[in-house]
């Protein structure tokens, strides 16, 4: 478990760099490093399905983010020293950690004992579905209804993006921008 803690430390440092750095592109690269660390952490915890998905989605997000940010000149935010905000944030984080410690102390330790539901799946998954990959047998057979909901969410999200970014809505903005330019000239 030692390498897991090293990875967690690496991910925390990467996340802090991603938040604090001024350059937008470097920030995106730091986010990518955090995602890669998470993928390796899934591999260490013996979840190759999740590791593959995390790695692939991370690359896709990174490409989209870099493509979207590389030529944009986004002004950096002016930060003022706001003492009250920082103190309130620290207080809330402290309270959250305290109560989380109280609540999570009584949970069973990681991986032991196996929960009742998953015991059933592990025992009968191969016999009932014929799939040797138990993750596939859970998400597409035992819990296929959840997967249908997830698929619907993705479908709706894609339709929403295509609707917001469609050409008809954009033309008007272009024309307005052009007219403003003409007035200025």
């Amino acid at each position: 478990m030692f390498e897991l803690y090293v990875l967690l430390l690496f991910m925390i440092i990467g996340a802090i760099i991603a938040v604090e750095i001024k350059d937008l592109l470097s920030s995106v690269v730091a986010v990518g490093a955090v995602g890669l660390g998470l993928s390796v952490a899934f591999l260490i915890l013996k979840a190759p399905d999740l590791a593959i998905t995390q790695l692939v989605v991370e690359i896709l997000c990174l490409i989209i983010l870099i493509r979207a940010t590389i030529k944009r000149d986004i002004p950096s935010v002016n930060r003022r020293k706001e003492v009250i905000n920082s103190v309130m944030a620290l207080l809330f984080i402290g309270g959250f950690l305290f109560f989380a410690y109280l609540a999570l102390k009584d949970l069973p330790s990681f991986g032991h004992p196996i929960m009742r539901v998953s015991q059933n799946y592990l025992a009968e998954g191969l016999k009932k579905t014929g799939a040797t990959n138990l993750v596939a047998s859970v998400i597409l057979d035992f819990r296929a209804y959840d997967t249908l909901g997830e698929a619907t969410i993705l479908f709706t999200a894609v339709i929403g993006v295509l609707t917001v970014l469609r050409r008809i809505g954009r033309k008007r903005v272009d024309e307005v921008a052009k007219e403003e330019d003409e007035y200025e000239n």
Partner: protein
Amino acid sequence: MKTKEPGMTLIVKTITRLTVGLILLYGIYIVTHGHVSPGGGFAGGVIIALSFIHLMLAFGKDLALKKLSRGAASFFESFGAIMFLTIGLLGFIGGYFFFNFFSKGKPFNLFSAGIIPLCNIAICLKVGAGLFAVFVALILLEIPIRKE
């Protein structure tokens, strides 16, 4: 930034020509073996979308859109969603929603596990085409930068 040939330099184009087919094949492998080994419809669909995005980044948007146009991407996405729902509804033959009505076959075979490979293919079509469509929409978007 307008050059005569769209896309990146010759080196990138050559490497892309060599690798893009392998990436596509790997995505298809991940999808079709989703019930035997780690992987599945979601990851494989994203890898297939990434192969087309790879093509688009290296050769420019015209060639990639010739291979898989925006209308085709929309069609495949809707087709995948309807296919997944149809598989679920066909389960009513056996009694309930998402009933595994095919024969289970032998474990560790490619054609086994009943409806699970079919669901994987449906999800792959939906996810891959959907993410490619989103990427195309984001690429073709040109926000006019407001002057201040």
